[in-house]
């Protein structure tokens, strides 16, 4: 949104003319967050991850970033029309520094408390290790002083971001983020570099024991800074040019972009090592699940919290059909079906389950539906786990010995070959993307949108809402069952514990963080969350986060709902829905909104 006017700036306020209450509030809040982070053991357990060799660890950053946020957030102002806006100046730096110091004081207090009292009984991280980390290697007293200084310094840097004009601010932030990302992605990047003969570069950038070298930091900072200073504008222009393409040009542009992504998908796994491929395969499984849930939640607006049920159905059906180790209650004549043949039955069975679960819930209020689907998800898991059906499902022992996928006799896709698994998953993701894309602009997709917007009006306009919603359930179920089928073949065994409610919630987080209703958003969400943090049971790129990933998922979900309910890569329509008023204001400012019709313009009805 372009600003239509730049507000007149009043001269900066005096350095000591501060809103001390605000500083106290923000500082206090961040202090509490810092204490929580310290007691969560993040700083200590992430100590081993060097971001900059021998200098900065991920554990340090887990505390520092909050100080930076404190310094920045305290200076944020809402610019209101008609109100005096002061120019930024040293006052902001001081405010940031004060807030940072107040926040850091929280850590100092914690250090003193740990030193003097023993609360290790309920709080497991009330430990000497935490104390040592908080004392910054010295005595508790020196730690206290150091924290105050560090807090003021980092907070001041945060505050000074307000003083900088836009371009240098971007430069600074880009440099900081790039260094952090390059450091954190070390495993993947050095893995790739080996395969494309850039080992020498990796050797310069990364230290032997992990972390960036000083040279690496400078290199990354300079490169990213150069991009930010000179390249960004041009990239922006290119993007706008692309977006303004119309008609055939647009189609061609899209096709090229799509082709590039497809080529990358095919080539990338070849240059990656086993671990990264394993990661990608897991990400792919979740992309598939998320795309399915996206149809249910994003397009049709049905909050299904028991989505894992279809994943489970896909997995178990595949296991029962393909494994010679299926439960002993099955008749002996049951053949060990090949995977692709089994897939047909899996689809049918998933669709039936979709209908079975969908039919009772479809007329319920949205929030009742959420809880009841969650109940169904749990019922299905409990049934798989029970001794009652144990003869068919293996109960807690699950089903093992599931063979891999035999692809036309060429190769067998199974867990030991993550690259092949990835290709298989990618193929199914492509199917899911195609399905979502085609359906969204079809008769069915429009009906889903209408149901999402206003169900009773949709019904009055001739849409059989029950059937249409059931359809969404079924399509979602089938996509999830694909994921389950691949999962079974990949892991080679299947247990009820793989299908806990947590899975449903994680998929929901992926869809919401990525952007409900947007295919690219959902994929990006899965790659970032599952790839970096890891799935409910699957490790992500950053093993250091594995103890905290669920915490982060929860926090992310809350934060997204409060700040960006439309997701990181939003669907235009969804955004409009969630920001109705702002959208209308913008439309009004651009003069697009239609003031009441002038009868002379439209004329009286045409004959």
């Amino acid at each position, binding site marked *: 949104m372009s600003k239509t006017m730049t507000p007149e700036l009043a001269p900066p306020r005096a350095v000591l003319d501060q809103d001390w209450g605000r500083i106290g509030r923000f500082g206090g809040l961040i202090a509490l967050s810092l204490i929580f982070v310290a007691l969560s053991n993040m700083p200590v357990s992430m100590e081993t991850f060097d971001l900059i060799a021998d200098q900065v660890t991920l554990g340090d950053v887990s505390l520092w970033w909050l100080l930076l946020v404190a310094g920045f957030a305290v200076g944020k102002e809402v610019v209101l029309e008609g109100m005096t806006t002061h120019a930024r100046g040293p006052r902001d730096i001081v405010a940031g520094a004060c807030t940072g110091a107040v926040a850091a004081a929280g850590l100092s207090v914690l250090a003193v408390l740990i030193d003097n009292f023993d609360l290790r009984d309920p709080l497991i991280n009330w430990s000497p290790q935490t104390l040592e980390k908080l004392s910054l290697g010295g005595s508790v007293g020196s730690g206290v002083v150091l924290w105050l200084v560090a807090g003021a310094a980092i907070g001041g840097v945060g505050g000074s971001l307000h003083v900088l004009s836009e371009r240098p601010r971007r430069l600074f932030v880009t440099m900081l983020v790039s260094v952090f990302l390059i450091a954190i992605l070390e495993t993947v990047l050095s893995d790739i570099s080996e395969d494309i003969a850039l080992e020498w570069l990796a050797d310069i950038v990364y230290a032997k024991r992990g972390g960036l070298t000083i040279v690496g930091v400078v290199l990354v900072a300079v490169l990213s800074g150069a991009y930010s200073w000179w390249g960004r504008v041009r990239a922006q222009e290119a993007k706008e040019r692309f977006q303004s393409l119309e008609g055939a040009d647009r189609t061609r542009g899209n096709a090229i972009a799509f082709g590039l992504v497809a080529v990358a998908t095919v080539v990338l796994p070849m240059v990656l090592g086993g671990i990264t491929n394993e990661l990608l395969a897991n990400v792919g499984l979740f992309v598939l699940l998320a795309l399915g849930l996206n149809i249910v939640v994003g397009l049709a607006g049905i909050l299904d919290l028991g989505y894992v049920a279809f994943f489970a159905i896909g997995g178990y059906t595949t296991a029962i059909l393909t494994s010679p180790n299926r439960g002993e209650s099955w008749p002996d004549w049951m053949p060990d079906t090949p995977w692709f043949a089994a897939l047909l039955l899996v689809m049918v069975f998933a669709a039936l389950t979709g209908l079975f679960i969908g039919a*009772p819930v479809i007329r319920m209020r*949205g929030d009742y539906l959420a809880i009841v689907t969650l*109940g169904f998800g749990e019922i299905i898991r409990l049934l798989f786990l029970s001794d*009652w059906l144990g003869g068919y499902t293996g109960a807690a022992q699950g089903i093992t010995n599931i063979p891999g996928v035999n692809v036309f006799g060429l190769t067998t896709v199974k867990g030991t070959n993550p690259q092949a698994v990835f290709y298989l998953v990618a193929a199914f993701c492509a199917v899911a993307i195609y399905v979502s894309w085609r359906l969204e602009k079809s008769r069915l997709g429009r009906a889903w949108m209408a149901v999402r917007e206003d169900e009773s009006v949709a019904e009055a306009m001739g849409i059989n809402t029950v059937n249409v919603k059931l359809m969404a359930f079924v399509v979602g179920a089938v996509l999830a069952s694909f994921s389950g089928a691949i999962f079974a073949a990949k892991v080679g065994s299947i247990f009820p514990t793989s299908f806990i409610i947590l899975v449903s919630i994680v998929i929901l987080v992926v869809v919401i963080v990525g952007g409900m209703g947007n295919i690219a958003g959902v994929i990006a969400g899965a790659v970032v969350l599952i790839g970096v943090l890891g799935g409910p049971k699957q490790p992500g790129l950053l093993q250091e986060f594995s103890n905290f990933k669920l915490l982060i998922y929860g926090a992310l979900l809350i934060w997204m709902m409060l700040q960006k309910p439309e997701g990181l890569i939003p669907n235009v329509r969804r955004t409009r829905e969630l920001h109705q008023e702002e959208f209308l204001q913008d439309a009004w400012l651009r003069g697009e909104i239609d003031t009441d019709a002038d009868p002379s313009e439209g004329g009286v009805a045409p004959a």
Partner: protein
Amino acid sequence: MRHKAAPRTGVDWFLLVLKVAMFSVIGFGLFAFVLQQIDPNNWLAQQINDDATGLTADQFEGLIISGVSQGAMYGLIALGYSMVYGVLGFINFAHGEVFMVGAMTGMITSNKLLEAGAWESNFIASLLFIVMVAVVVSTLTAVVMERVAYRPLRGSPRLIPLITSIGISFFIQNVSVVLLGPGAKAYPDLPDWWTETQTIGFLEVQRTRLLVVVVAAVAMGALWYLVERTKTGKAMRAVAEDKEIASLMGINVNRIIVTTFAVGGAMAGVAGILWGIMFRSVVHTTGFLPGIKAFSAAVVGGIGNLGGAMAGGLTLGTAESVAPLLILEPLGVRGVSQLRDAVAFSALILVLLVKPTGLFGERLSADDRA
């Protein structure tokens, strides 16, 4: 609500079949149970449940008592769901976690009291103390939750606060994991007198269970008084009916909503302690299932209806405790105790299919009924 004369669409038929199937399972199970009680070796039992033994009166009594005490707890938690749904019209999914926080607080406090020696020497006072602490902490949790996450979302599409509450639920669970560790934590042992049984008439009840029921009844009574007899209660009901009009009538809507959360939180805190006393063990997931079941209880009783919430809790608790042995076991289902939760969820589904407004009718504002 529309009344349908006869099923016409495929979905209608399916639902009819489903209902008939569920009721026939219940009916047939009960029938088999009765036969089995008369003669464990009857013809039907020989066919479907070879090792049927039937239940003794003592066993049956035990099931009912454990069901009722469990149900009283569900009822207490359900009050929180019901009140928030009545006033704000969304499911506070994280309410189960408020309950867990109460139970955790109780665990920490009681263990500290044990260390100090007060737990054994002065049990009643200690109990009152841990209830107080748990109530304060739970109430704070609920109020902070409202302030931080729900207030900014008021007026947004109704699924948004629900999704947020799922996030909160998740977040609180994992805060507990990272701060207190993932393992189960034990409450200290109760003095012997409490674990012994008390005879009331012909019933023999473990005293802790009696305590649970009595406390629940007292809490329920206090809540009833608050909602039906005080000015705050009247304001609450007004806000539930129509927030805008209520604020025009000079009611501070924000304050009333906070009060609602606070009262719900306090009830959950009490329930948390009762849980601790009854099962003497807490984990971070303690709140999850009971939370969902309590929500089911609120729905069963008719959401927004406080008496209904308690009645729903008792119904669900009893059903969950009795139904596996009364209905499933006689049908020859193995390992019925594993299916307790599945039975509870099925009960929720059945109630929503047969009577979506709950057994005792819901009380909601006009918007939410739509």
